[in-house]
């Protein structure tokens, strides 16, 4: 058995401000094998970034351990820092610096000689299509170009593990899609372990992509996106003209199906194969004399998976807590959901 790229054991981080203590990461257990591409998915304030910061030596765990390629990160941070690249939430390249210079500096910091550092920087800059912008101050580049320079900085030392904290936050949809493509390509080409955090569903939503869903500082699901969604099945939604018919239909359907939910004039049925089941349901209800106003079938999304697991929608969790994940360990209260707030299950179940 090879050494895992990352192995956390009961990883915990509690922030204390005054008398209140907030547990951002709660006995988190996670193992990532070398070469994997893993997305840590969760709403803002779920503890994804705090987890990443503990793994990358930026925060000291309150308890528990992190091993990166076998190195205990808290005990030997300097050793751990040689082995990974990091793309944080902010821009890695200084705004007054030229992009290429920053990539070279990073290579020098990792112990390469001048000439080798320059060659390595040019190589990665070319690979990311940044040669035309290499000698411009970073503050004059677009968001997408800056992000690619951040990735160049993260990869110039050819790290065994690359961490990307919310890599596409703040980018427009086209740049986001482009960046996701780049990350997948780089993963295939370099074979490096890559771990990214995101609250964008589409970023984690490739069938074979391993997704670790984190909520309230704990791992609540860990599988491929395909498997997570298959587990939930498809949803057949039936619409009726009035509540009585909907209730009667729901009763009838419960005789054949386990997962039937009523919501006003609509009834939802979870099945393994939505389109086929939809036809059967349609026939059955017609035979029973219940007139149907409309029907939809949909595959489960990762948002459905999250909703199923937590009773909250990932999207709504986002809008509740603001745009970006808490980046400041000194003021943990800012973006974290209020633990005293009731679970908004009813609002989102409709």
């Amino acid at each position, binding site marked *: 058995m090879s050494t895992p790229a990352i192995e956390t054991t009961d990883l915990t981080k509690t922030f204390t401000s005054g008398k209140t203590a907030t547990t951002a990461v709660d006995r988190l257990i996670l193992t990532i094998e070398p070469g994997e591409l893993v997305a840590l998915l969760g709403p803002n304030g779920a503890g994804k970034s705090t987890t990443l910061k503990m793994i990358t030596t930026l925060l000291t765990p309150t308890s528990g351990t992190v091993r990166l390629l076998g190195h205990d990160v808290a005990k030997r941070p300097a050793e751990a*820092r040689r082995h990974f690249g990091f793309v944080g939430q902010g*821009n890695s390249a*200084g705004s007054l*610096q030229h992009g290429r210079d920053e990539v070279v*500096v*990073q290579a*020098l910091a990792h112990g390469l000689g001048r000439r080798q550092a320059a060659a390595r920087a040019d190589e990665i800059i070319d690979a990311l299509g940044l040669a035309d912008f290499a000698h411009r*101050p970073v503050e004059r580049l677009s968001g997408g170009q800056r992000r690619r320079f951040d990735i160049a900085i993260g990869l110039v030392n050819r790290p065994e593990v690359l961490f990307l904290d919310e890599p596409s936050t703040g980018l427009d949809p086209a740049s986001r899609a482009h960046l996701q493509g780049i990350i997948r390509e780089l993963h295939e080409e370099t074979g490096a372990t890559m771990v990214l955090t995101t609250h964008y569903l589409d970023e984690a939503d490739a069938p074979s992509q391993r997704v670790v869903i984190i909520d309230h500082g704990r791992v609540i699901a860990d599988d491929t996106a395909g498997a997570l969604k298959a587990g939930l099945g498809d949803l057949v939604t039936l619409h009726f003209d009035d509540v009585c018919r909907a209730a009667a239909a729901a009763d009838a359907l419960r005789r054949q199906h386990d997962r039937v939910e009523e919501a006003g004039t609509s009834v939802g049925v979870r099945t393994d194969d939505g389109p086929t089941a939809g036809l059967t349901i349609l026939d059955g209800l017609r035979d029973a004399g219940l007139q149907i106003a409309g029907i939809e079938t949909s595959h489960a999304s990762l948002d459905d998976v999250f909703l199923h697991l937590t009773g909250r929608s990932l999207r709504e969790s986002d809008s509740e807590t603001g745009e970006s994940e808490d980046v400041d360990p*000194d003021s943990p209260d800012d973006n974290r959901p209020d633990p005293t707030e009731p679970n908004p299950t009813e609002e989102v179940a409709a």
Partner: protein
Amino acid sequence: MSIPTIARHTSIVFSREVRPLLRSPFQMVIAVVQPIMFLALFAPLLPGGATAETLQWFVPGMVAMSCLAAATMTGSNLMLEMATGSHERLLVSPLTRSSLLLGRALKEVVPVIAQALVLVLLTWPFGFAIHPLGILGGVALLALFSVGVGALSFALGLASKHQDWLFWTVQQTLLFPVLLSAGVLLPLDGAPTWLRWLSQANPMTHVVAATRELFAGRYPADTLLAGLAGAVVVLVIGLAVGIRRMQRAD
């Protein structure tokens, strides 16, 4: 961590910091013009007029003042980089913590050394005596002192994360009392006892006194030792506080 590693890492950080400065000619011009303006506007007000003797007293003080002002900016430039992600990225690189601090503090000091040379050359025709060895010694002493001040400013920058007002309040509140009580701009000959006492407790007083002697080509052992002691005290405290503050990851 070994000394050669720290030196190599410091030079990486220093070169990175200096690069945008070198690319911005305007900043360089400002850096040179500023002391000239000070000299032109301040020197005529000093008792005795702009005679050689007055210049001999005033110029080293001005160089010291520029050093202090520049070194206290270390933390503000750090805060700019903390607001983006570039400080964070350097923190997770293999660069040693002390070199991140030293490289930044040194970057603020180097332009000041260029300013010192400009001042010395400009005042030369008006009777300022040039003692190369003494000037070299004085600049070296000020550099030691400034790196210490820069490290303290760095720590202040870390402590004021996301609260720029805190940094500026502390920096502005301390800058002028330190300057004035060190007798940099005005002599403290007629000062009341409490002010003299305060002045003696200020390490910068001794650093400036020693710098004046050095620039004048005089080497009285007691004054120079007191100056060196003042600079070393600030340097040691600065590095201890700055590095400790940075190693506390959260």
